[in-house]
């Protein structure tokens, strides 16, 4: 096995990354039994170099290797046949570099050429198709869904995305300064998670050590983001079941959390809070008390509303056994984050990848997952409670570091020939940023992976054999990101 072992947010020398044959990588992956977090190419003169990053969640380590495709190597035997989790990564790699994974079961566009998208077809007298999007009925992002139905029942759903493609990865390379504002706008519902992943990657590359105080404030913000979005999603799930009381109450309860965020950072979603080198706004004792008071109030409302919802038969019957994904399928598809946990795949980068601020908190994460909408609803509820606990513990810890500065001046030069993987567990799941620098410390490749990138196919699996009218409910229970996928 020829792989470099590394950790989250640890800089390694890019020249140390081995270049092996693609067959060797494939046989290694078979033996490793780990999950993929990175599979992307980079142009190296006339060659294309493919980097593969695997994660071992049990011991919190990352494994990196690479292979080189010379100009006459135009194809390779696809990984997806054996490991379905690679399907979207291989499609992306093919789209960007034109190197074809042979015998890929569904080699379709990811972000471009939507007009040439080859949809699956079903034949038969009673078969009908339902096409939805790119513009949806609600105020949400664009994407196209194609249902193959027999009567009310969905046989298959195909999801065609790419409408949000803005070339963000390229834009990161064009910048001469640190661009936290761009990082925040990659995915506007995970502002803190993206900005944190970006900042940590840049800090690792530039050798900037930030203060403990800044680290704690970042994590407080990250958990508040999780609380806010989860509450909003519970409201949206209630709304899609036509339980309007739930929709209204969760909606206004979310406002309390994001308005507290506004008081901390001047923006309801925490924009402008994090910069490379630390944070821009302090949380003093007064603010800390305010946050705790707010959370206590919110906890009461969320508890009460959830309890009533779970006593309402019409809610339970809509949620239970709707949109099921088994643990086996979730694992095979490489699902991550909240959606994976709700199907019983217990991965959480906050705790798995040795983050001293989280591992020292002593919080429990027991959850009996059933993989349906009810499971995702309940997981959100439990994660809200868990995050509240975490925020309180972090705020108590913050008092120990009162005298520290909130930011340091970052080193403006990135280390040359370096490679770093930065993972942050946003509310949706792991946000992975991978940065690679060249001989003069310039950014050569910036690769991002949103949890949605893995999880969109999970949604397609979830709606199989459900009524087409349950699709909005399933969709909302995942609440995946379009822009995080399309970049």
């Amino acid at each position, binding site marked *: 096995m020829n792989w470099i072992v590394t950790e989250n947010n640890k800089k390694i020398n890019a020249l140390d990354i081995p270049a092996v044959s693609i067959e060797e990588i494939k046989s290694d992956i078979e033996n490793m039994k780990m999950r993929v977090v990175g599979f992307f190419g980079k142009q190296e003169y006339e060659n294309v170099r493919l980097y593969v990053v695997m994660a071992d969640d049990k011991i919190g380590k990352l494994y990196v290797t690479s292979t080189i495709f010379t100009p006459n190597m135009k194809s390779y035997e696809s990984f997806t046949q054996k490991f379905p989790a690679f399907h979207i990564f291989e499609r992306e790699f093919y789209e960007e570099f034109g190197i074809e994974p042979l015998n890929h079961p569904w080699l379709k566009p990811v*972000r*471009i050429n*939507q007009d040439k998208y080859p949809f699956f077809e079903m034949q038969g007298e009673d078969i009908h198709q339902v096409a939805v999007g*790119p*513009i949806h*009925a*609600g*105020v*949400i*992002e*664009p994407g196209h869904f194609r249902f193959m139905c027999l009567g009310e029942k969905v046989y298959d759903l195909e999801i065609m995305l*790419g*409408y*949000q*493609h*803005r*070339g*963000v990865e*390229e*834009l990161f390379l*064009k910048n001469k*300064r640190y*661009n936290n*504002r*761009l990082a925040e*706008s*990659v*995915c*506007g*519902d995970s*502002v803190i998670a993206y900005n944190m992943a970006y900042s940590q990657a840049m800090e690792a590359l530039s050798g900037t050590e930030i203060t403990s105080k800044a680290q704690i404030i970042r994590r407080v913000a990250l958990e508040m983001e999780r609380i806010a979005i989860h509450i*909003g999603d519970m409201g949206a799930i209630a709304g899609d079941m036509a339980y309007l*009381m739930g929709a*209204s*109450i969760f*909606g*206004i309860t979310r*406002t309390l959390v994001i*308005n507290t965020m*506004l*008081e*901390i*950072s*001047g*923006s*309801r*979603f925490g*924009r*402008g809070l994090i910069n490379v080198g630390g944070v*821009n706004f302090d949380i003093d004792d007064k603010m800390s008390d305010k946050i705790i008071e707010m959370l206590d109030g919110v906890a009461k*409302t969320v508890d*009460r*509303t959830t309890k*009533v919802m779970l*006593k*309402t038969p019409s809610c339970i019957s809509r949620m239970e056994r709707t949109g099921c994904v088994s643990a086996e399928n979730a694992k095979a598809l490489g699902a991550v984050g909240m959606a994976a946990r709700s199907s019983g795949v217990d991965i959480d980068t906050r705790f798995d990848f040795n983050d001293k601020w989280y591992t020292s908190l002593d919080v429990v994460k027991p959850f009996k997952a059933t993989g349906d909408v009810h499971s995702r609803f309940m997981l959100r509820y439990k994660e809200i409670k868990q995050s509240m606990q975490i925020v309180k513990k972090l705020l108590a810890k913050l008092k120990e570091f009162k005298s520290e500065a909130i930011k340091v001046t970052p080193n403006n030069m990135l280390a040359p020939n370096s490679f770093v993987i930065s993972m942050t567990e946003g509310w949706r799941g792991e946000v992975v940023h991978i940065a690679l620098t060249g001989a003069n410390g310039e950014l050569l490749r910036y690769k991002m992976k949103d949890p949605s990138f893995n999880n969109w196919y999970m949604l397609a699996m979830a709606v199989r054999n459900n009524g087409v009218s349950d699709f909005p409910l399933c969709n909302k229970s995942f609440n995946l*990101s*379009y*822009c995080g996928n*399309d970049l």
Partner: protein
Amino acid sequence: MLDTIKLKYFQGNQFIPDIPNAPMRSQFRGFPILKKCEGCTLDESICPTGALKANPLSIDMGKCTLCGECKCEAVQFSNYYKLASTDRNKLIVTEDMTPEEFAKTAIEARKEIKRVFSKSLKLRQVSAAGCNGCEMELNACSNCNFDMGRFGIDFVASPRHADGIVITGPISENMAYALEDCYKSTPDPKIVILAGACAISGGVFQNSSKLNREFLEKYPIDLYIPGCPVHPLTFINGVLDFISKK
């Protein structure tokens, strides 16, 4: 049923009674206040979107993400949130301009618009590569706090039912066709509203090669609502000032 009624009782009334004069938290970064500052040199390049110009001092709210990166003696952000304007050029805030001065001339709508839309305005929103920030805030406009529906302003599911479209996001190449299609499907008379820095100027994505902003040159734009993302109060008040007869 009884539990549900109890739930409602515990919530009380949470709507904001007076939207046009709703108080805003002091920490909110809104209308920029620019003052001449002797002996200080502003570095334009700290602005991620090129909204800040040092000589003469000005901030283009159509580009500004209100991130506060440029905050100093000369540049302060007030919590004034009514930032909308019918004229793109008026979004450029210059030295010593006060929010009151800006508000006086910012929104000048034609009489016909007020006549046709003042009681009811149905909007179709198109997210053209928006990051979901503006989308979440536009959704929040219809929640129980802001309750935009009380003014007869609503988001509808189909462009056929709409009186206008609201565009968020920098308009990616891939969305250009769908956006134009949506606009054409909206019956006349119709209005176009741009919400957020991305829609107005491309925002942080303005240098991307994957955008196609031809739509904005082809069709008239009626209202610009800055923000990153647009605050619900900015949006509702912007639209209200645009349609209400006063």
